């Protein structure tokens, strides 16, 4: 499939289902953190694989990346990204403790963050699956804390990637206010090429 030549009506359809998925993710996340969570309009990004690090503003920044594969009628990857600080704040809220600047990221923090990702991504995928009448199941999450460029390229190229040259990605930004701090994160939805076709077919846009 030639990504560059997707028609605008197809892109609209894809953005719309991403919107539905993100909406469910946002309400799941807001239940965890006890705050209203805002989402922006999902953006469709089609970029050469060597430019994938541009999906994060500063590619050298240390971030947390949680990768979940999904399988079923459609396959691909989801990647949830936060700055290390924001991830820590979120975990502190989840564990009901005082937010601190201590940057310790132990077993407890890591598994809490994976649990957050599980809930957020499952909400996204199940909403998508219900709407499209497709079965979509997430894998167990894998968490890394490292520089954004390494996280993004390695995540994309891990496992079987059926389009190795061009990244097709739907990017949603989450944002919520905690005291004087604005926390933000990104969710990337990366369907395999064949699955993108399946999605368009389910939308009657093929």
């Amino acid at each position, binding site marked *: 499939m030639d990504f560059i030549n997707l028609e605008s009506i197809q892109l609209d359809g894809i953005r719309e289902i991403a919107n539905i998925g993100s909406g469910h993710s946002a309400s799941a996340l807001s239940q965890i953190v006890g705050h209203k969570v805002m989402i922006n309009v999902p953006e469709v990004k089609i970029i050469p694989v060597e430019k994938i690090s541009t999906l994060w503003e500063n590619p050298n920044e240390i971030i947390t990346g949680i990768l979940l594969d999904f399988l079923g009628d459609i396959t691909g990857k989801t990647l949830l990204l936060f700055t290390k600080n924001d991830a820590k704040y979120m975990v502190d809220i989840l564990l009901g403790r005082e937010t601190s600047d201590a940057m310790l990221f132990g077993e407890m923090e890591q598994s809490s963050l994976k649990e957050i990702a599980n809930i957020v991504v499952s909400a996204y995928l199940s909403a998508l699956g219900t709407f499209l009448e497709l079965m979509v199941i997430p894998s167990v999450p894998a968490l890394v804390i490292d520089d954004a*460029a390494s996280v993004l*390229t390695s995540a994309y190229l891990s496992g079987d990637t059926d389009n190795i040259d061009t990244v097709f990605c739907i990017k949603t930004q989450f944002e919520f206010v905690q005291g004087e701090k604005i926390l933000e994160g990104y969710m990337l939805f990366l369907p395999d090429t064949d699955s993108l076709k399946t999605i368009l077919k389910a939308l009657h846009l093929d």
Partner: protein
Amino acid sequence: MKIIVHIAEYKIAHNSGILLTNGLGSCVAIALYDGRQKLGGLLHFLLPDSSLSVDVSNPAKFADMGTDQLVYDMLESGANIKNIRAKIVGGANMFSQIRRANYVPIGTRNIEAAKTNLERHGIPIVAEDTGKDFGRSVEFHLDSGILIVKSFKMGVVEL
């Protein structure tokens, strides 16, 4: 002077320059150095083999084509093939927590490919910092041939 080598690029410099590359996750950096000329080249490739791709317009994306191009340009710039030594960095398997059946991680394949292609050119590898599960960056100092490898997990390593 610091010269940045982006993902899927290679650059050549000499004397007092520093070649710099960031964001080596599963990617591998090949540093070639001719100590007599103080001439060095740094390649940051993404994929083990150009046959995996439809688009092969950029040789620096691949271990095979990238190594050929880097070696060719080193020789064009005055390096002697007998004096060239290689160091390799990267090839991590960062998402090793997701187990996949019958799957060799791309990082592992990239390390293998770097070694195979350097051997093809008869260039010996004198040092490496490869594998494991974390991202790295490299500073290649061309006055000494020393590589400073930095990572969030392991700090600073001299190679």
